[in-house]
């Protein structure tokens, strides 16, 4: 049976998600910041972590976006293969949702029309949309606005198979170490290992939408996530890059089969304002 979904419903949901994601962090992110403050050894680091939590309270109570960089709108749409969209163009409806969300939510319009000529589109469109077709008749929308302080510090490495897991560890540590204070630590690190060039990058971005409390179901990947978090927090970068042991809140790694000749590793860094909202239609 084909299920019909009105594209106007998609617009409405996206609009709400733009606002929700930019004003409230998920429970796991709130809990992670609190726990990190308790464990922080640097006095200045502790102070910054307490300010970050105060910032979340002010954002919520006074309706001020958590961060002024309300991001480029990144949207993952998992569309059930039994779904049919009606009453318009799906992509346009997504952008209409972004347009309304950023306007009605007092969110910053941070998108320029051309990467070289750089004229602001004034409505934060277009969004970056990743579609996938999945079984079923539902649509899962994940809205993850991404700020560019941390996006700019993200990296991709086309390693050799011989580099192995040590090469992967080195790639992650190098990325975080180079990012330092620029990426607004404590960060969340999304990693994609395998696939090809763009699959690795996409996995690293998608990994950021996973709860920071949830570890990979693959035993060696889970171990790698835990080991990398420990090593990153031993770098000493700390909150705001001003020293301390809270450099990252979590390392989320996704993997995929790859080619006999390659070992792609993408590291997508997110700041402590790791935002996402999820709806299922």
């Amino acid at each position: 049976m084909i299920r019909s979904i009105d594209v106007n419903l998609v617009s409405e949901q996206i609009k709400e998600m733009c606002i929700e994601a930019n004003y409230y962090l998920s429970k796991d992110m709130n809990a992670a910041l609190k726990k990190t403050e308790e464990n922080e050894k640097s006095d200045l680091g502790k102070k910054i972590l307490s300010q970050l939590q105060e910032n979340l309270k002010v954002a919520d109570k006074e309706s001020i976006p958590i961060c002024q960089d309300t991001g480029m709108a990144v949207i993952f749409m998992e569309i059930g293969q039994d779904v049919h969209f009606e009453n318009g163009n799906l992509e346009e409806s997504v952008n209409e949702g972004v347009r309304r969300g950023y306007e009605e939510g007092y969110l910053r319009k941070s998108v320029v029309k051309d990467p070289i000529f750089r004229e602001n589109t004034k409505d934060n469109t277009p969004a970056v949309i990743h579609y996938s077709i999945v079984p079923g008749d539902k649509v899962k929308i994940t809205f993850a606005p991404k700020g560019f302080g941390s996006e700019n510090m993200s990296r991709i490495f086309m390693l050799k198979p011989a580099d192995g897991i040590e090469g992967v560890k080195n790639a992650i540590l190098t990325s975080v170490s180079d990012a330092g204070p620029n990426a607004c630590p404590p960060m969340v690190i999304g990693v994609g290992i395998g696939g090809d060039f763009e699959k690795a990058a996409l996995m690293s971005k998608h990994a950021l939408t996973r709860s920071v409390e949830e570890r990979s179901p693959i035993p060696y990947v889970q171990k790698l996530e835990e080991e990398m978090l420990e090593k990153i927090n031993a770098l000493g970068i700390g909150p705001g890059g001003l020293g301390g042991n809270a450099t990252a809140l979590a390392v989320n790694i996704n993997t995929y089969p790859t080619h006999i000749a390659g070992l792609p590793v993408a590291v997508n860094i997110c700041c402590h304002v790791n935002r996402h909202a999820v709806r299922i239609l």
Partner: protein
Amino acid sequence: MEKYIQMPITEEVTADLKSGDYVYLTGTVYVARDAAHKRMTEALEKGEELPIDIKNAAIYYMGPSPARDGRAIGSAGPTTASRMDKYAPLLLDLGQKAMIGKGKRSKEVIEAIIRNRAVYFAAVGGAGALLSKCIVKSELVCYEDLGAEAILKIEVSNFPAVVVIDSEGNNLYETVAKK
């Protein structure tokens, strides 16, 4: 050490600031980021005057979210300062004394800081809602067409920041990394 600083800021004051000091800034600060810096530089190249009074000025690298009715400004945290590295030395040589942002600076900027006895402050990145409470007034100066990148003149009151690079070139990010 905690210090209370009046903006704009003179060389006598910057000379006393040490990397690692925790400061509260009060007074007038300009807001400009990427596109505004590019335009100011182009204006100078054409022999035109700058749209801001650069002498002893502090520039906050920031692009706020829109203000709700009755508020001075929206969310207003620092942006990554290194993107302004290409433009900063020229403005420092013209008299700018303070930069407020977050993240590392280039060798050229650090040299210009030392040469001009200036200072680089870091504000807490990603705390834009909280920091907006320390901005009591905001007015548009120019480049309105740039949207969030227009130049603003703001009044801050006890705005918290950390001295990262002082007038002698001591760099807190480096000190911390060496530990």
